[in-house]
């Protein structure tokens, strides 16, 4: 995969989209002038329109500032399972801005937040004139393809408990300390599993004191312990993130 130089700690500590943070101040202003801010609503596609499946060729890309968006292929118009999660480190909807239609896959907001929306044609233009932006978008595409490939294998190879621990850890990292409003139905959809199986797996994590789940609000109480329960995909994908320095990737978070 294409690797960009790691972001500095200072760059990561400033709120905002990390792909935009890579740009020189002037280029950043130039790009943001073409963007509009949008809210990401949980359970909806980033565009905010009800209905799960994003229309192929949808005209916009989204650069999240906060929140998390998942990529999930549909089964009978319902989410099939999450294969990848993207937050402020990346962008969504921009597969091949070189003119090819959008991906026939659904993006869905898992954690509410905000994002910059940019027409795909504008992104393509900006990439033509800016080598750093082009590299960053290409690196992000490469990362998402690896996530998808691994996500598919994970569904076949890993048990529900470790998969649940992995995604909860990832969501908690995007969310920070605040509890997440998330139902067992949504967790089941994320994992491509039955509700009963997810409830059992969540109960097990709670008994071990790793999470606290009450009235639809979920809080991670022991992030390091949760990480130890997670499947190997958590760490394997963490090292691909542009905001995680390779040396610290293996340390408990």
């Amino acid at each position, binding site marked *: 995969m294409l690797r960009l130089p790691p972001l500095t700690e200072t760059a990561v500590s400033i709120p905002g989209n990390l792909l935009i943070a890579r740009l020189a101040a002037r280029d950043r202003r130039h790009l943001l002038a073409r963007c509009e801010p949008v809210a990401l609503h949980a359970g909806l596609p980033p565009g905010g329109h009800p209905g799960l499946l994003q229309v192929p060729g949808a005209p916009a890309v989204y650069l999240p500032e906060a929140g998390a968006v998942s990529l999930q292929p549909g089964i009978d118009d319902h989410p099939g399972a999450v294969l990848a999660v993207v937050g402020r480190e990346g962008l969504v909807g921009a597969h*091949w801005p070189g003119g090819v239609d959008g991906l*026939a*896959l659904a993006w869905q907001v898992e954690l509410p937040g905000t994002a910059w929306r940019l027409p795909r044609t504008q992104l393509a233009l900006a990439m033509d004139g800016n080598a750093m932006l082009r590299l960053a978008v290409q690196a992000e595409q490469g990362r998402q393809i690896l996530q998808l490939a691994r996500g598919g294998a994970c569904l076949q190879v890993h048990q529900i408990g470790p998969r649940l621990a992995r995604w909860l850890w990832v969501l908690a990292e995007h969310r920070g300390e605040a509890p997440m409003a998330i139902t067992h139905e949504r967790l089941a959809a994320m994992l491509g599993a039955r509700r009963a199986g997810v409830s059992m797996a969540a109960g097990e994590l709670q008994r071990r004191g790793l999470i606290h789940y009450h009235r639809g609000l979920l809080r991670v109480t022991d992030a390091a312990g949760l990480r130890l329960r997670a499947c190997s995909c958590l760490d394997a994908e963490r090292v691909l993130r542009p905001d995680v320095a390779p040396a610290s990737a293996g340390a408990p978070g």
Partner: protein
Amino acid sequence: MNGSTPPQANGLLAALPAAAWARWRPMLEHVQMPLGQSIYESGRTLSHVVFPTTAIVSLLYVMENGASAEIGVVGREGVVGIALFMGGGSTPSRAVVQSAGEGWRLRASLMKQEFDQDPDVMHLMLRYTQALITQMSQTAVCNRHHTLDQQLCRWLLLSLDRLRGQELAMTQELIANMLGVRREGVTEAALKLQAAGLIRYARGRITVLDRPGLERRTCECYAVVKKEYDRLLPPLSAGG
């Protein structure tokens, strides 16, 4: 090259613009692809990309502990080695020939150079990559949600689309590996399809008797993938 399938039997090579074709033609090497041959191994640097003409290649993702799962198939519509376009020379997956045949290969360094310098080539390869992504994604969720006989139908149809005949030389062991299930499960699913008159299964060979029947029996996933390949890729010549 007597007796070998021409490069244009591969849909991507056939769709190259004339200028690119003129540059590529002397660089392409014909390769035999026997059953079970490994095209590349996880963690290794890609030396070549391979454009199958009659072979089918299975892409397997390999986890750290050695467990693997099939994430997609590539035949005469595509190319093995897309990791190269993603900027990386090495890959987390294995590629293994699942149906013997032939293909043409190109050195990875040349492919990379062409991808970076010719927008037509880049565009064609990215369209293929996008189609493959859809296949990988849909396969992944299909394995979670649909019955094994639906999955077997999907897998047979995807393989058939990449072959010229109606017969697949497949052991149940191989199919079980590809679908990530136990061999007994595949036997049971194959017997169901045989009882329904859709396939004949004898001595390790599956012959498809009723393709429309398979299409009716399979889940939506086959159609989702097929539609995306049809939308994004140049049409394949009927004779291959």
